[in-house]
């Protein structure tokens, strides 16, 4: 799946980004036809006020549409699959699956620790991969955590951030959810590393199964449920929380 998937993914991204820039600036014009609300920004903010919690989101029209698509995909596909997954596999098996993928994710951290010139993180993640792949039986058991080896998580987006690349515009990625231009681009080398390692470790047919299980495991480990968090501003809230989290991830 590796290369062709990545290519399709990137092309989609670029196309979506291009398409979106043409659909802006409409709502503002419309607003003037309606009576002014009791409280307006003009009444509450000084004229040149910039909100510190604002996130740069020039692709908002596209992003909200992808956000919506992701919600429907989540409802129709992801969550039913997760429910089946939970019903069929007992907890210890699900933990095994999760550990198995974390082992590959640790390999991604190894790669990025080198790029961030961080020997500590490199040795931690390498130690984890070596321990879990051997004593932990192909990563099924997380022996490294029992041995109290810390688990840093570094991806290529963080590596770019480490070297000073800003987040860029907020970006909602189909299937995956909130991101930004920098991290979206960063997915490509990470996916490449992960599929390269898996390619070395697994045979061809198995890799397709692994790809699907990886997606299921990731969703299963994510507690977030669309439109169940009591915010009327969910898109805006997630956007702010996510971009703050990514800033903090880089400091870490």
């Amino acid at each position, binding site marked *: 799946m590796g290369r062709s998937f990545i290519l399709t993914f990137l092309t989609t991204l670029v196309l979506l980004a291009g398409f979106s820039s043409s659909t802006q600036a409409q*709502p503002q014009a419309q607003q003037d036809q*309606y009576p002014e609300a*009791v409280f307006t920004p003009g009444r509450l*903010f000084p004229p040149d006020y910039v909100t510190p919690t604002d996130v740069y989101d020039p692709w908002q*029209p596209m992003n909200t549409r992808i956000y919506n698509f992701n919600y429907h995909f989540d409802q129709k596909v992801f969550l039913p699959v997760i429910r089946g997954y939970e019903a069929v596999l007992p907890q210890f098996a699900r933990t095994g699956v999760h550990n198995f993928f974390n082992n590959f994710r640790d390999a991604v951290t190894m790669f990025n620790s080198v790029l961030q010139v961080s020997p500590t993180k490199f040795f931690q993640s390498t130690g984890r991969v070596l321990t879990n792949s051997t004593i932990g039986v192909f990563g099924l058991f997380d022996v490294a955590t029992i041995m109290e080896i*810390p688990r840093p998580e570094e991806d290529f987006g963080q590596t770019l951030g480490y070297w000073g690349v800003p987040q860029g515009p907020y970006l909602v990625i189909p299937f995956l959810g909130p991101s930004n231009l920098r991290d979206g681009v960063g997915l490509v080398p990470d996916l490449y590393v992960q599929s390269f390692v898996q390619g070395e470790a697994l045979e061809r047919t198995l890799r397709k199964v692994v790809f699907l299980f990886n997606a299921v495991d990731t969703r299963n480990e994510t507690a977030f449920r669309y*439109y169940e968090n*009591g915010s*009327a501003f969910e898109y805006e*809230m997630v956007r702010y929380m996510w971009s703050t989290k990514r800033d903090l991830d880089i400091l870490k």
Partner: protein
Amino acid sequence: MTYRIYLRGMLIVLALFAAGTRASSENYDYPIEDRYAATVVGTPAEYQAVLPKTIPFQKRWIKIFPERELPEVVWYGGRLLYSQALQKNSAPLIFLIAGTGASHKGAKNYDMARAFYQAGFHVVSLSSPTYPNFVTAASKTGVVGHAEKDAEDLYRVMEMIWATLDDKIDVSSFNLTGYSLGGFNAGYVAKLDEERGVFNFARVLMINPPVSLYNSISLLDRMIENIPGGVDNFDRFVDDLMVGVAEIYKESADDLGEDFLLKASETLDLKNEELAALIGTSFRISSASLVFTSDVMADFGYIKPRGLPLDRHADLTIYAEVANRLGFTDYYHKFFYPYYRDEYPDQDRDEFISSISLRKITDYLQGSSKIQVLHNEDDIILEPGEIDFFRETFGDRATIYPRGGHCGNINHRDNVAAMVAAFTEGVTR
């Protein structure tokens, strides 16, 4: 079978425990002296009641108004979300009502559900009428915060949920509780039930309720003035809070999970004013969501221009920013009162707003022996002296703890024991 005996034994022990605390609150060992810290931090683990790790807490939804056509921007809000944990055998049923802006699956409701499920109750957990999902799916007017109308909405919801359970479970009695605004709601729902008679609640418990809703929200609104530099720095304060958190985040392995802000706030060692600002801020964020949702539902023109249709892809950033700047008191004066004014022509603004109070149903509360109260002497949502209302109205049916702030001690073992005892003590099953 042994499990049931064990359960009954537990209940007796719990009941005795509760009876003990009622007499001697000087033995109460809830450790946090400061009312703001208590409210934010809650109960440290070693003082908490032991509750089952998991219960069969199932998420459910129901359509309350099947014909309702929602404005597109809240298109996802048509189903009322709630949850339930049911016993296999005949058991008493308890409805839980969450506090301001909180949901049926929020931490406090979930903890209460665990306590009551462990004590052998069927549990049905409901969101607050001020929770946006309730506003869109279950509020008749969309403009909430009205004591009687919220009670009617809740009652309708309870009846409809009960209709789905009636032929599935055996229920020996109906009971009702809620914390904070949910406690206030419980009082009004109990009164409504006397007229409607659908449930004939056996017992009702109000936990840390406000007396006057307007007084309490004014207090919460004013807490935001503790933000360094004032309310104009709201966004800056939220942002600083997040950046301040970064320092801790660097060292801990925790991800940005649910309890992260809370944990961070513990480690940040916030000063009193900052804790108050934090409480005010979190109240503000949830009230902003509520107010915007109400405005959309009623198309009142409070923040969103009246008549302006917003679709599901609309950019709401500007509405969020405006809503975050407005207090709940602004909502009462500039939206709630004007909206209901015509219905109450003989009351002026102050009379109308101050009538949203437990004082309005004092006689009922005083005369109704099935209603009990758990409260704290130092609750931050009460004006000085307001705590005496509970002593005077409920007499020995009020248990008032010396510490705990607003619901900070709700997980303390004594509180959980008293909470359960309120429904089991002197009840034959």
